[in-house]
């Protein structure tokens, strides 16, 4: 029988530091993806992800397996991301970013084009930028709900707990968010790049 995340956490609580590595390995990418879609900057997303895992490590002794591990983890990630947004770290990171990446889309800027035309790549980049901007323009709670639902694929109960609302309220929240996106992104709905 596979070891659950809660079991790994309890092992970590008992002093098994390898259990922490297992959790990092499993959730490194999902946490970075989630944070990246909030802060839109690679280095900052990774820095914040490290902070999330540090908090998990620090909290190992007080961890109580009341909720699903992912609920707890993404609640921490949400708090860390919102703190970063509010203390201006995101703005500073954008100002100082010297990376050779197109931070608005997350895709590397490519000069050579081995698989498609430059124009095609630019169109795809433009579509991604529109999607990012449309999601970014949502009210904070709707945006988080969409990220946790669409991209992290958490279930309704988990998202509702992370966002501190009822499941019913969450479903309405998601509907309103997707309705807004449907209107804003309507030009993209009929035609794929």
């Amino acid at each position, binding site marked *: 029988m596979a070891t659950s995340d809660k079991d790994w956490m309890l092992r970590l609580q008992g002093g098994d530091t390898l259990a922490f590595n297992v959790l990092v390995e499993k959730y490194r990418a999902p946490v970075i993806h989630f944070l990246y879609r909030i802060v839109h900057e690679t280095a900052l997303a990774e820095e914040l992800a490290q902070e999330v895992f540090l908090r998990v490590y620090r909290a190992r002794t007080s961890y109580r397996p009341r909720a699903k591990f992912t609920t707890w983890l993404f609640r921490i990630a949400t708090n860390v991301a919102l703190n970063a947004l509010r203390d201006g770290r995101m703005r500073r990171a954008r100002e100082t970013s010297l990376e050779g990446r197109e931070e608005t889309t997350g895709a590397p800027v490519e000069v050579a084009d081995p698989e498609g035309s430059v124009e095609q790549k630019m169109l795809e980049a433009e*579509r991604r930028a529109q999607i990012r901007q449309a999601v970014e323009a949502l009210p904070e709670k709707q945006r988080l709900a969409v990220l946790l639902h669409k991209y992290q694929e958490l279930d309704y109960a988990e998202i509702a707990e992370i966002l501190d609302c009822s499941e019913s309220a969450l479903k309405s929240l998601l509907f309103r968010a997707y309705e807004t996106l449907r209107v804003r992104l309507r030009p993209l709905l009929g035609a794929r790049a």
Partner: protein
Amino acid sequence: MSEHLREEEFIPYLDARLSDTERRRLDLHLADCAACRARRDELRALLGVLGEWEAVEPSPGFDAALQARLEEEAQRPVWFGLRPAYAVALAGAVVAVIGLLLWRSVPPTTGPPPVAQTPPEVVEPAPGGETPGLQAGDELAALDNPVLLENYELLEEFDILFEPAGKEEKKL
């Protein structure tokens, strides 16, 4: 025609997270309602389009950076990793304890208001040479005092107590 889909039903419908009964009911409505059908189709297309927004993959140095931060953390004092609220509470408690200790080590500066220093009233000897310090009645009262009574024989040696009194009184 049955009721339109409610807003909290659309997303679970698209996620296929409804019970069979609920799904059949909504399917029946969708078969008859072009508006709900169009909305459903656009929302379905939207979910597909949103999937085009890819996130970055973790950099190869992520684990090493995390490990470095963990090691740095291990070298810090315990209180360094406390949440700000806990750190403030801890600092407050330390200040309170130090304050209490300081307060207890300093003699109190406040107390009962100082009594005016007036010179003791000089009692003039009564006529007849009796010292009003201890009169016959006082001697009887002294005998009621257990401390004085216990040391009566010793006190008796101090003539000043009984000097003015007569011999008879002294034999009380």
